Structure formats: structure tokens, C-alpha cells
């Protein structure tokens, strides 16, 4: 009996698949507009992607030790994971922080913590990515202040601030203020970066969290690029010339299980963005038209059952990211369905990238898959489906009105529920979970977060507050509030506040007094 006659084949996003593809489709060469096949002519022959493992736990001391370990293992970029209180603009001693300090990332409350985090790490040489959104400008100001202390001038610091608030309303939900004042803060940092930090990406427009929240690949792509359009609109509105800031916009995508659809997604992303920049905004600089992206393998695809299988999933996902032409990559660790990764697990994850980079031969050829009948057609299909979403959001008046009416949130919730149902029915197979299951699995060794971390952090914060000049802090916060009420760029005033050792919580609360807070209408 033929299976193909009865079963319909689709990608994970639901795009239909033909029995065979044989229509040649021309795509411009790597390094040529619209960069479908890659943003560089020689791709990884010129330079490998940056291997950048996202890390942070407990206190700045603990995480500093992990960073030094990762750099010693051959990692070439750092990526800071902050804990939930920091992400939400709370100090470690806030009542809402209880039980959460240092759990999902490192606790940073003041410049003193940031100094410890990068002790012995030369910020002029290592590029650093920081996953922080609502309080992004505060943590970035702390980073720039540490660079100053190290004697590294701002035009030499290089790295990426996530600073993508729109996807917080859409997916990850770590917002503090309402969308419009939040967008003003983002635009402030883009403007500041354009003037003072030419090698720093002030934003990483992120689809990763949209995908983790349960979206399809097509939704991830469409919502992310439409968010990008929103940021460009705001920066133009501010009076910046498109080619002055667009080369520093960077992107961040998920690397999920559907191997070819993921590769098609990255290719379609470059193609759509190049056209948006050239045709919608009239960008002339090629660097504005080239979409650069970081990829992270899909955390949500990892299983608690048979965790060793996660190494294999991650390897396949990482290969998709590399074949899709990523500029930097994080590979998840096998134990991440349980906890933050152990040192052993994160080493295996880093080695996975190194095996792909040095042993497989994939890097020897720019875009090895270009010209595949199937992949080129799938790239077109993904592009078309994403563009249809982008047009719908344009018709709604942009991403903020779309968020306010719950459009992307509802699309994602529907996709996520449908996926879960298909797992439940066995239509989607998850190895070790709903097929090929095992009884009595052996437990794996996990990272234990030192239970004294919260207490140590709170004590450190207390001593920082005792040592600083209270009147300097008061003055800096009063100045910041005044600026927040007006239209001047907030960044220089946030810098003054962090230099006076005002805390994340104090600065964030001061801005909150002016901006107010945001509560979403929950969409089920």
C-alpha cells in the first residue's frame, strides 16, 4: 500500500509540500542583493559565525567564573542572561524578587554588580550580547560605564543589546511600561548608539521568543520583520537618516526542528528585509539591506524525557542555522528542560557547534543548498506567507495597534494549541515523549544554584547603597524624571544615574512614575 497517496505532507508551519520539486528557481549569488543566499560572497570561508552561549546564574561572581570558563573553552563571544527581577526592573531586595534572584539568570542591581560580572574580561576585545528588554537602556548604561572604567572607549565596544520590546508584548511578556513610552526608550538607545557606539547593535529584533511561545516559522518571521519595520518607522520619526542606523539593526531567530523550513525561513528573512529597506525606506547603503542574525536552537523542542536525545535535536537545529547563514549561534544544552545548564552540558553544546564548524565541511562552501529545487521553492512559499501577514498588520495601522487588539498573541496561541493537540493525538511525534518511550529513566546531574545566592546578593546591594552618595542618586533620578517627561534623549541621564550607583529598581521606578505601567488583556 502506498502511504503517499493518502497522507498529506506539510511543513511544521503547515505549508503544503509537493511530492517532488523540479522547477529550477534562480537566486542571486551569495553577497548579492537580495542576499537570499547569504550576506557575504564567501560566507564562512571569510569568518565563522560567533559561538555565543547564553549564560547567567546566581550572582555576578558566579557568572563571571562561568564566562571565564567558556572563553577558555574556545567560545568567542559572551551573552548575558539576567534573572527575572532584573528583567522586570526590580532590585534583588524587592518583595516581588523573593525566590527569583539568580534563578533564571544573573542578578544585577547596580553598577557594582556589572563591574564584578566583567572583572578580568577585556570589553575592547570580547563582544557581548545582553538579553534585556524593558530595562535595556539601564543595563546598557552600566555596561558602557564598566567599559569606561576599563579604559575602553565607546567606539571600540562591540556587542548587541536585545532591547526588543515589541516581542515582549507579543510573546515573552516581560514588559513594564505601555508600548509607546517603551518605544521611545528603544528609539533613544538607537539614536544614542548611532552617535556614540558605532560597533554596537542597539537592538536585536527577535523572533526567538515568538517561536518559543508557540508560533509557526512563518509567524515568527512575519511578526519579527514587522517589528523591525516599526522600529525603523520610529527612528525615522526621530529624524535619523535610514542609512545612519539601519546597518546596526540585528535580528535573532529560532532554529527549530523542521530542517528545510528553518533554512527557508532565514533565506526568506534576508530577502524580505533587503527589499523592505531598499523599496519601503529607500536605504542606499548595502549594509542597511543586509539582514544579520543570531540563531538559537529551540528550547521548546527539548524534552525532559530521554534528555540525551536533546544533543541530537540541537545538532540538527544548529546545522539548519549554519546552512541558513547565521552570524552567531547559541546551542542549547541537553539538560535545559530541567534547569539552567551544568558546566558539562554547556560544554557538549559548544562542542556541537565546533564539530559542525570544523569537521563537517559545511563551512567550506558558501550556501551549499542554493539551487535546490525544493529549498528555493520553499523559500518563496515562506516569503509569500510572511508577506501576507506583514500586509495584514500594515492594514491594522502597524504593530502597536495589532498588539493592542491581540492579533499576534491570538495567532500564536492558536498555533500553539493546535500543535499541542496534534502531539496529544500522536499526529506529531516527539521521540521519547509520545513514541519510543522508556520506563525508569536514570536521572541526570543538574546545575544546583547556590541557595545562599539571594542572600549574598541582597547583602551586597545593601553595602552598595550604604557607600554611595544619596544626594547624587537623588539628583540623578530627579533629572532623569524631568527628561522622561519631555522629549530629550534619556540615555545620558540614565548613564549619570548608574554612575552614581542608582539601582536598576530605582531607575526603572523613576521612569515608571512618568510612563505608567502596562497590563495586557489576556488572550486565551
Amino acid at each position: 500500500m502506498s502511504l503517499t497517496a493518502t497522507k498529506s505532507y506539510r511543513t511544521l508551519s503547515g505549508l503544503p509540500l509537493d511530492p517532488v520539486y523540479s522547477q529550477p528557481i534562480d537566486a542571486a549569488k551569495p553577497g548579492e542583493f537580495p542576499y537570499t543566499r547569504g550576506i557575504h560572497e564567501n560566507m564562512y570561508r571569510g569568518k565563522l559565525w560567533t559561538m555565543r552561549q547564553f549564560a547567567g546564574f546566581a550572582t555576578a561572581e558566579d557568572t563571571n567564573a562561568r564566562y571565564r570558563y567558556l572563553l577558555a573553552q574556545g567560545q568567542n563571544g559572551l551573552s548575558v542572561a539576567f534573572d527575572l527581577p532584573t528583567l522586570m526592573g526590580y532590585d534583588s531586595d524587592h518583595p516581588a524578587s523573593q525566590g527569583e534572584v539568580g534563578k533564571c539568570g544573573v542578578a544585577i542591581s547596580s553598577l557594582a554588580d556589572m563591574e564584578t560580572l566583567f572583572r578580568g574580561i577585556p570589553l575592547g576585545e570580547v563582544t557581548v550580547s545582553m538579553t534585556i528588554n524593558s530595562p535595556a537602556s539601564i543595563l546598557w548604561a552600566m555596561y558602557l560605564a564598566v567599559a569606561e572604567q576599563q579604559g575602553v572607549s565607546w567606539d571600540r565596544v562591540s556587542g548587541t543589546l536585545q532591547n526588543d520590546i515589541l516581542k515582549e508584548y507579543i510573546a515573552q511578556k516581560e514588559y513594564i511600561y505601555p508600548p509607546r513610552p517603551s518605544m521611545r526608550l528603544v528609539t533613544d538607545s538607537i539614536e544614542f548608539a548611532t552617535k556614540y557606539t558605532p560597533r554596537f547593535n542597539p537592538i536585536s529584533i527577535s523572533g526567538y521568543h515568538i517561536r518559543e511561545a508557540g508560533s509557526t516559522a512563518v509567524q515568527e518571521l512575519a511578526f519579527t520583520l514587522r517589528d523591525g519595520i516599526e522600529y525603523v518607522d520610529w527612528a525615522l520619526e526621530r529624524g535619523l537618516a535610514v542609512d545612519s542606523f539601519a546597518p546596526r539593526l540585528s535580528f535573532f531567530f529560532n532554529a527549530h526542528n523542521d530542517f528545510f523550513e528553518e533554512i527557508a525561513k532565514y533565506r526568506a528573512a534576508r530577502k524580505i528585509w533587503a527589499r523592505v529597506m531598499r523599496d519601503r525606506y529607500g536605504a542606499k547603503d548595502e549594509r542597511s539591506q543586509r539582514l544579520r542574525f543570531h540563531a538559537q536552537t529551540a528550547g521548546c523542542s527539548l524534552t525532559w524525557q530521554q534528555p540525551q536525545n536533546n544533543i541530537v535535536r540541537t545538532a540538527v537545529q544548529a546545522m539548519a542555522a549554519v546552512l541558513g547563514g547565521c552570524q552567531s549561534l547559541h546551542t542549547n544544552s541537553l539538560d535545559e528542560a530541567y534547569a539552567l545548564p551544568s558546566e558539562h552540558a554547556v560544554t557538549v553544546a559548544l562542542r556541537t557547534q565546533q564539530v559542525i564548524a570544523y569537521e563537517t565541511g559545511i563551512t567550506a562552501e558558501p550556501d551549499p543548498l542554493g539551487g535546490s529545487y525544493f529549498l528555493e521553492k520553499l523559500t518563496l512559499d515562506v516569503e509569500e506567507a510572511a508577506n501576507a501577514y506583514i500586509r495584514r498588520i500594515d492594514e491594522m495601522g502597524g504593530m502597536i495597534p495589532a498588539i493592542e487588539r491581540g492579533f499576534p498573541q491570538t495567532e500564536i496561541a492558536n498555533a500553539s494549541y493546535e500543535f499541542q493537540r496534534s502531539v496529544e493525538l500522536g499526529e506529531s511525534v516527539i521521540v521519547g515523549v509520545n513514541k519510543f518511550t522508556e520506563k525508569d529513566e536514570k536521572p541526570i546531574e543538574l546545575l544546583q544554584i547556590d541557595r545562599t545566592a539571594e542572600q549574598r546578593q541582597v547583602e551586597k546591594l545593601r553595602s552598595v547603597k550604604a557607600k554611595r552618595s544619596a544626594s547624587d542618586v537623588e539628583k540623578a533620578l530627579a533629572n532623569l524624571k524631568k527628561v522622561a517627561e519631555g522629549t530629550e534623549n534619556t540615555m545620558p541621564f540614565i548613564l549619570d544615574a548608574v554612575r552614581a550607583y542608582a539601582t536598576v529598581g530605582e531607575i526603572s521606578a523613576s521612569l515608571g512614575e512618568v510612563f505608567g505601567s502596562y497590563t495586557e488583556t489576556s488572550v486565551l
Partner: protein
Amino acid sequence: MDHRIRVLVAKPGLDGHDRGAKVIARALRDAGMEVVYTGLRQTPEMIVNAALQEDVQVIGLSILSGAHNAIVPRVMELLKEKQMSDVLVIVGGIVPDEDAAQLKRIGVAQVYQPGATLDSIVNFIRSSVKQTA
């Protein structure tokens, strides 16, 4: 009178990852239960008050941040204080085995770790609520 099982699905703590909570809420609703979803960043006090107001038989707590040991005991205490210990409390999220055992010792009826099926959760609620009704 409506005999549908009433469930409060709650997201306590600072964690904003609500994919699981939303999927569970929809699955319980599709299974014929009446579901109230609290939305994000609920304190134990807010959750217990909502449970009282909505007169639910079940509270489902979704926690992925590792803060369960700080949050769940507080919810259990408040339920006891308000003489609501008959409310069935279930927890879902990233909860290591030893923590799950401890949560059960303080009265949590069931802890669902990653990979738990929607069916098993629905069935557990149905059979437990029937027993106590």
C-alpha cells in the same frame, strides 16, 4: 444549576512564559470545564482571592522560573487560613522530582512536569473533583 468543574489557571511570580498555562486553560475548557485565567504576575494573595471570588474547585499554578518553592507554600498557607483546603491545587512547570515530592507533602494534589499529556491532567481533575464532591 451549572455542574461544570470550575478551575482557576494562574501564573504566579515574575515569569511571563504563558504558553503552557494558555494551552492547559484551553484544553480544560474544551473538556467542558469552566476556566478562569488570571493572567500574568499574580501574587499568592491575588490567586487565593480570585479562587475565593470565582468559587473554583481547582487551582492550577503554572511556574517555569524555578520559584515554585517560594510561591506554592504561600498559596497553600493562605488556602488554609481562608479555610479553603478543599480546593484541589495542581502545579505544572519545570519542577525537579525532589521539589515535586516536597510540594505534594504540603498538600499539592499533583505536579505535572514537561511532557505531561493534556488528557492525563483532564482525567486527574475529573476523578479528583468527583471524589470530593
